[in-house]
Each structure stands twice: as C-alpha cells, then as structure tokens.
C-alpha cells in the first residue's frame, strides 16, 4: 500500500491518533467504564480505550442494523427499544445483553420460550 507523504498521512490519520483529533467516543469515559466494570481492573494500557472506541462503533452499528431490520419488518420508521430487544434476543453474541434489555416491564413479551425447550433427542 503506497503511503502518502508525511503531512498528508498526519492529516489522514488525524482522526485516529490518540493525541490529535477526536475519536468518535471519548477515551476517558471508556476508561472510566472499564474501571467500573466491577472486575477489579487495576491498570489499563493507553491503547485499550482506543481499541474500544472503534469496537463500540462497530458494536453500535451492528446492533443498530439488526434492530432496524425489525423496525422495517414492522413497517415502521421509528426505531424503538423493542427493536433493539428483538435484535438482542435474536443474536447469539448479544446474549449478555438479554437481562439488560428485558429489565423493563415488557419482559413477558421479550423472553419467548423459543429455544428454551429441552429437545428430546434420542
């Protein structure tokens, strides 16, 4: 991959350097959340929040995409919390969010017994 000259590279990378230019998500906030994750996190390298800033973008994009599909299925134009809940329930890797999104009073609508049945395979 051809690299442009130094100055244009700096400009190009202005968005992702730790020092200059904003990340999409604030690094200090990410670090706080990491520290407060309750797991006795001692020290965090400087690069870890940077990885998370991008990872959270990817995460939000994926969850939004999946939620929007539910919205479209309902022929609606407004993305609601229920769409997010539906996306969470329907995606394996979002299992860790199930209890979070179903904390609302709608839990009986969200947690359907699909997949909880014990299949009798002989």
């Amino acid at each position, binding site marked *: *991959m*051809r*690299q442009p*000259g*130094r100055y244009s*590279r*700096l400009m190009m*990378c202005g968005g*992702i*350097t*730790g*020092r200059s230019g904003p990340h999409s*998500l*604030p690094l200090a*906030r*990410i670090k706080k*959340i*990491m520290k*407060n*994750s*309750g*797991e*006795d*996190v*001692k*020290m*965090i*390298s400087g*690069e*870890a929040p*940077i*990885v998370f800033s*991008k*990872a*959270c*973008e*990817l*995460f*939000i*994009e994926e*969850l*939004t*995409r999946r939620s*929007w599909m539910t*919205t479209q299925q309902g022929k609606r*134009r*407004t*993305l*609601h*919390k229920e769409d*997010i*809940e539906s996306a969470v329930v329907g995606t*394996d*890797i979002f299992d860790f*969010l199930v209890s*979070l*999104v179903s*904390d*609302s009073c*709608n839990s009986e609508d969200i947690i359907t017994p699909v997949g909880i049945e014990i299949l009798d395979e002989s």
Partner: protein
Amino acid sequence: MEFQNQHGTRQSGGPQRSSQMILQSSGESCDNPGPVMNPPLAGSSDNNTEQRAPQCLVREQDRYMPIANVIRIMRRILPPHAKISDDAKETMQECVSEYIAFITGEANERCQREQRKTVTAEDVLWAMGKLGFDNYVEPLTIYLQRYRESESSDRSQFVKREERQLMDYYPPGHAGQVAMMPPPPPSYGPGYYFGPQHGPPMYDPSTMGMFRDCSSSDAGGGGSSSASGAQGENSLGGFDPFGHFK
C-alpha cells in the same frame, strides 16, 4: 414516547433506573471531582441526574457514552428518514457500556490468570475473539496498527536520530537536504495479533526526497511501513532505496 421529565432522571416509562446514583465502594478512588449539582430542569435531559449530594458517586453521565456520539453512529446506519425513539437511544447507551464491561471483564480475567496488572489492547482483542466478536478483531487490528504507526511518526526526536543514522549510511551529497525520515520502529513488543515486529526503520517514500532529484515524481509503493508493506525486509540487507530507479 415523551422523554420530558422535570426531575431530569432518565426514565422511559419503566421501572428501571429510577435511582441514578451508584455508590462507589469505599476502597475505590473516585475519579469524579466532586458532586455536580445540575439544575433539575434543563434542555438536555440526559445529564441532569444529581439531586443530592456529596458522596463519591458515579454520575450517570460517566456510566455511559455520550448520547450524541451514540446517536451519530446509529445514524450512519439508518436511512435519512429514520427516527430513533428516546428509549432506544438510552438503551443503546446502556448496551454499549455493558459491552465494554463484558469484554473488559474477560480481558481482565486473563490478565489476572497470567498475573499481569495491565489490561492491554491485545487482551481486549483476545477477549472479543473469545466472546464471539471475532469479526471485529481484524478491523480493530488494522485500526490499532494504523494508530501505532501514526503515533510513531509523530515522534520528532526519533526523526532526528534516524536522520543522523541515515546520513552515515548514505553519504551526503545526494540531495543535500534531509527531508523526511522513515518512521522509527514501533516501540511495542511482538503483538499477539500484529505479526512480525518491524525491524529497522521501514522505508518511507517521503524520504525519496533525500535521495533523488526532482525528476521522479512517484515515490513508489515499496517503502510502506504499514503491515501490508515490505514485511519481509527485516534486515538492512534488503533495504534498497534505489530500487525504484533501476
């Protein structure tokens, strides 16, 4: 659903999060500079959660990513006519924080198992792979590489040192001026995900200004210091700055 709530707490009609304050455990140092008393009525309803007082509390806004940033990222995905309900925005904020905590927990456990104190970027990437987010690992790896490269190219003190080394290696009298220097080797150790460590300074086309006259306009692609570049050149023997002129 109307979001307006004159006490400023984030409620979406459900019973969740009626109390927005979380007491820090006593052993924990509090990052917050002290109680922040926001007026209960304000335009931006997300940040007004504190009604009382002066303990070491995690403010709600510190538990979540700023809602504006979250919305902006969501809007990249959604068509222009789409709307997002307020409870969806809040839910997304909560999900992001939960995601960070989830990954961090796994990464931290690995650190503790290996008796390390610092959660590194590699730990985070490892945890993501382990927890099912392996399709994120590659783009994040590339992102991190680019970040490290851009960081290392910012270090001007390395630039001067490398300048001197290259001046010794290549006798002066070519261009005479020392323009740009190749970036120094990145200072991180061999990464779990990042392939072989760079050896000597990778050749940067911008250094061509040093060795050529102005006739050659294309600096060529050989001097890339990124991962996709000449990774095989780990010894100075393979270093051929004049290769493009042959």
